[in-house]
């Protein structure tokens, strides 16, 4: 079975287009689901204050703080829902929250 | 023999009346008959009165109810005569077979005026003499075959020997005892 193109299954899809038993074929399909649209508050990263302690990365419920070569990168705003946990956990004030997208 | 012979067994939990009914079904099956062998189930335990049934026929058996008007009744434990109406619905052209050391004359008054044939067999003595223990199944089975004529005695003995050889392949010493119990029963049932 080819991977399910979830962008083609929407709340407007007729029942015939829903997969059998709502099964989703293929892996990593949640990437295509842009949950970042839900955000009402947005975290802002201040690299100058960041010590790369990486306390923020594991607490992110949406895996939206990518890490490359042992260093955190800027937020994945396609999937960050703006919950603010990362800002709470940061001891150095390197993440602040702003209102809106 | 009628199209379908119906037999009702009365015993107590643990005495093997259900097993005897299944054995009878088994041996009649091997004889080429259509058979049913089934117990009436409840929460019974050791010692509680239990009932089991057989239908034996040349035709397909479709009815799935209990048996209310049997041709034959087999009583594996004579103490049941006091508490259970064992002759209920029993055909007067049929017979009742009772496991007892007592003579028929002593039993008949307990049968609520049943006018059909009454047979007795002392299954305890036969079993203890041939097997050294009390297993009433083999004698009661043989008595039932002898009285009901569901199959020829010789054919029955042959089938049972085959079954015992299969069942007791690791204990051949009990085969002869069981066969002797069957033969003694054929001689003694009256």
């Amino acid at each position, binding site marked *: 079975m080819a991977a399910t193109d979830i962008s083609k299954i929407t709340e407007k899809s007729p029942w015939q287009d829903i997969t059998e038993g709502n099964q989703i074929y293929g892996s990593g399909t949640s990437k295509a689901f842009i949950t970042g649209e839900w955000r009402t508050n947005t975290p802002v990263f201040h690299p100058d204050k960041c010590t790369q302690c990486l306390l923020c990365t594991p607490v992110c419920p949406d895996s939206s703080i990518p890490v490359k070569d042992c260093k955190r990168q800027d937020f994945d705003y396609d999937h960050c829902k703006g919950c603010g946990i990362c800002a709470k956990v940061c001891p150095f004030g390197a993440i602040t929250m702003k209102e809106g997208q | 023999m009628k199209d379908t012979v119906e037999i009702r067994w009365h015993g107590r939990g643990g005495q093997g009346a259900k097993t005897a009914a299944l054995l009878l079904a088994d041996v009649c099956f091997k004889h080429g008959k259509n058979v049913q062998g089934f117990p009436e*189930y409840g929460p019974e335990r050791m010692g509680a009165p239990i009932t089991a049934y057989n239908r034996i026929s040349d035709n397909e058996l479709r009815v799935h*109810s209990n048996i209310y008007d049997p041709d034959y009744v087999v009583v594996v434990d004579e103490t049941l005569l006091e508490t259970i109406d064992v002759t209920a619905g029993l055909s007067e052209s049929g017979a009742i077979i009772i496991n007892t050391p007592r003579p028929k004359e002593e039993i008949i008054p307990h049968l609520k005026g049943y006018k059909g044939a009454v047979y007795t067999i002392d299954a305890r003595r036969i079993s203890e003499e041939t097997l050294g223990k009390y297993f009433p199944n083999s004698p009661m089975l043989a008595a039932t075959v002898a009285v009901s004529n569901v199959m020829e005695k010789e054919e029955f003995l042959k089938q049972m020997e085959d079954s015992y050889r299969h069942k007791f392949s690791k204990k051949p010493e009990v085969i002869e005892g069981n066969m002797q119990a069957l033969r003694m029963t054929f001689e003694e049932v009256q």
Partner: protein
Amino acid sequence: MGIRERLSGNEAVAYAIKQVNPDVMPAFPITPSTEIPQIVASYIANGEMDTEFIPVESEHSAMSATIGASAAGARALTATSSCGMALMWELLYVAASNRLPLALTLVNRALSGPININCDHSDSMGARDSGWIQVYAENNQEVYDNFIQAYRISEHKDVHLPIMICQDGFITSHALANIELLEDDKVKQFVGEYTPENFLLNSKEPMSLGPYAVSNYYMETKKAQTEAMKNAKKVILDVGKEFGEMSGRTYGFFEEYRLEDADYAVVIIGSAAGTTKDAIDQLRSQGKKVGLLKLRVFRPFPDKEIADALRNCKAIGIMDRSESFSGQAGPLTAEVTAALYRYKVDSNIVSYIYGLGGRDYRAEDALEVFSELEDVTVNGKEIEQFRYIGLRSR
């Protein structure tokens, strides 16, 4: 020509399981179905089959593990009765909505309370809306034959639904009777290998199963399930026909017994059908035009087919072996009546409840029903439209 044998209903279905040799069987014992996993476990211990048997700690776990095994890509089944199935309740719906083609051999037993171990259909009738295919049997032969057809139906690509193979507790499950078995190779060939297209343990094509469905998706999912159930109708007929070509015993949605010219008909499920046939032969020999519709497949419900078969009957007694406390009919009557109304069959209908909690159903009971149906029609006798038979009453 098959193999002449004598087996109880439980032995027969266990033998069919051995011949089919599914991949996984999780089970928890409950009377009167206990013998099925017990006998299967013996077959496995003796090396006669290689099904993975999982002794679980409850029926909830039994159905969960069956669902897990099926989702993983295995051909799976379990067995239960009565309260055991009640404990599986939420998982029954999960198996169906996840579209898993697994099997349950159900030995019908009354639900508590009062606690009772004997036969009625309250367990499976209670689960009639769970999305499972339900197939019932009159005797040991039919439950054996039905199990051999089970996976062919449930695994069909147009169906993918779980299947319940039902038989009457004790009445057939524990009664020794003649049966004709099929040769192992014939069964293997008929059932075939299970090659699921999608399954969780397929590392090359990962998938997700059982996601949350918000309101925007739930209803479309249910519609797809009901379409699959409709598709099952054709598959059941095709498989029943093919089974007949192999075994000489063809199966459809129901059996019509002397129904073609019958004025008075009884509709019934399970072992009581055999007893009713004996009553019908008795009445036919007296010139009475009576017949029987023995329903085999309750889900999917063959509404039009039933209506067509009963179209010319003057009066119909519909017999339920479970209560639904609507005060007007049991579940079978409710559904048959709806079908008759929809397809414009105008007939006198009387709803009977019989055989609850193992109450014996006798040929005399069937004779009474037929006599009443005739009385209603010929003499215009007014009777209760919903009543119990075989009941003690003042």
